[in-house]
């Protein structure tokens, strides 16, 4: 799906000639490597290597449930995202409030489009990854894997994407089929037409 990017970038590079970053001294001069920096240890990497991909790469051990997620949500999320995951607008909340997490299916091709986890997000892995790194807003990176799994289970359960009895873990999460999984296509600009009258 995304293999065409290489072709586009190469074509662009050819069209524009040499990159402005190419400096003749660099090209003709020092050819070796540089003794700067230090080898990253496995501990260095493990401390930060927490991202999660759609195929499940990066998901840690642990698990969570709708029920546990419901409790965590009420304590840590509802203030900004609403008791019913409906989103809140309040200038006194960080970023003016948190977005709705559910609803909006069937609205994307209308002027009243509603972008939520339920209606728009193509991968469940993104929900895990984002909650772990960035939520809650006032205490990012504070949740443990079991808590994040539980929140994913709760939100996806409320969105009627998974069964409320399902357990979320490294095996089950990548198998979740999000409603808008096929709602995206790679950049197709510029338009193949003259863009003004």
């Amino acid at each position, binding site marked *: 799906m*995304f293999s065409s990017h*290489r072709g586009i970038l*190469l074509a662009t*590079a050819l*069209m*524009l000639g040499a*990159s*402005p*970053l190419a*400096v003749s001294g*660099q090209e003709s001069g020092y050819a070796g*490597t*540089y003794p*700067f*920096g*230090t*080898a*990253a240890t496995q501990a*260095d*990497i493990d401390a*930060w*290597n927490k*991202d999660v*991909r759609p*195929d499940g790469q990066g998901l840690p051990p642990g698990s969570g449930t709708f029920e546990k997620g419901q409790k965590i949500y009420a304590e840590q999320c509802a203030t900004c995202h609403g008791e019913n995951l409906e*989103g*809140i*607008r309040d200038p006194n909340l960080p*970023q*003016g409030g*948190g*977005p*709705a997490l559910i609803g909006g299916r069937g609205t*994307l091709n*209308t*002027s*009243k*489009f*509603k*972008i939520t*986890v339920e209606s*728009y997000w*193509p*991968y469940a*892995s*993104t929900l895990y*990854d984002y909650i772990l*790194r960035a939520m809650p*807003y006032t205490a*990012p990176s504070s949740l443990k894997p079991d808590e994040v799994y539980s929140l994913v289970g709760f939100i996806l359960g409320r969105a009627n994407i998974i069964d409320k009895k399902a357990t979320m873990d490294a095996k089950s999460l990548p198998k979740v089929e999000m409603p808008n999984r096929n*709602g*995206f296509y*790679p*950049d197709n*600009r*510029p338009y193949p037409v*003259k*863009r*003004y*009258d």
Partner: protein
Amino acid sequence: MDRTHRSEILIGEPVAEGDLVRPPEEDCACKEGMFPKASRRQILRGGGLVTAAAATVLLAKRTLAADEDMAGSWTVPGQLAKSDYGTRSKFETAVRQATPAGTDALTPLQSLWGIITPSGLHFERHHNGVPAIDPAQHRLIIHGMVDRPMKYSVEDLKRFPSVSRIVFIECSGNSGGTARSATLKTAQAAHGLTSTSEWTGVRLSTLMSEVGVKDGAGWVLAEGADGAMLSRSVPIDKIMDDAFVAYAQNGEAIRPENGYPMRLILPGWEGNINVKWLRRLKLGDKPFMTREETEKYTDLITLTGKARQFSWVMEAKSLITFPSGDMRLPGKGFYEITGLAWSGRAPIERVEISTDGGKNWALASLQEPVLPKAHVRFRYPWHWDGSETIIESRATDQTGYVQPTKAFLTANEGVGPTYHYNGIQSWKISADGSVSNVLIA
């Protein structure tokens, strides 16, 4: 924040995201002068922005010698040099304009000259505030599909061969508030999420040859050290083409709000992928599909309900910064129309100006240097005959791409989240000289 204002912007989306939020309409005292932010008080005190018409009036009211601020500077010794950072004249007042949620602050484009944005006026956009980072503690780790995972301090990076490049950075959401509304009054409020700086750092191609890229590595996850730990997937081709890790901005260390002590620079690409406070680059064989490249910064086309993804390039755009919204021309006569044009794809080829609402177009002159992927300054001499009209600018880059009209964009893209919005901006000049934002759909 003004609720009604916000709901108007975010059709279908109940919560504001900073780069789609419009700032409040400022209470601007600028109608007294030609330029915004020149208050009546400043003009009366003899500040720098005295227009010909205003000056005539003012001179009748007082003599130069009576003005303490202006007269007699040559009659007393001046300020001696100090070992300090230095500040601008106390008469200069242009500032960034922050949104109520504090997630953005916009550059006062209408108050600036040339192409470089002063570092203190470079726009800000962040997803969980500006982190306080001690550069001595900061590390950049490069790992994943590499032969030699490495860890670099700021001082390590400074020892590598360096590169400097003047590059614009524009928030993907810039100008989105002008798509279907003309309520944002000034160039700053409507289009101020773009700025140009000279950035200095180390080429990613250099660092990649240091760590050794494994076969099959096609994507690089870039991650920041901010509270949002903002992360994006960057294709390896861009990394090897013209990407670099910058530690300096306009000759000094990068400002905290722009990524101190180091950030990614991907020339021509949407702002947020130029990851600030960069702490980690992870090579992999597939995109990572972070929130900032799925829910956010994808372009929902409401005509189809499908969304364009990985639309990184900021396409050609231009903006007249003088005369622009909320200014007032003192009378008919000569004015130099000026503004900025830029394209993330290729150097600007030409900028055309219309002074009759888009019926006729004439070439503006481009100030050298016309740098690729940087703001370009254009100018056009104009005699205003005093009658109401609309002025517009239209940029074309060297790929032949022409900045579209708003009508074209609506017809082709519908009414989605308006990332990458580059429709032609129209400013109306009223017979009384006042300049305002108008929507020509």
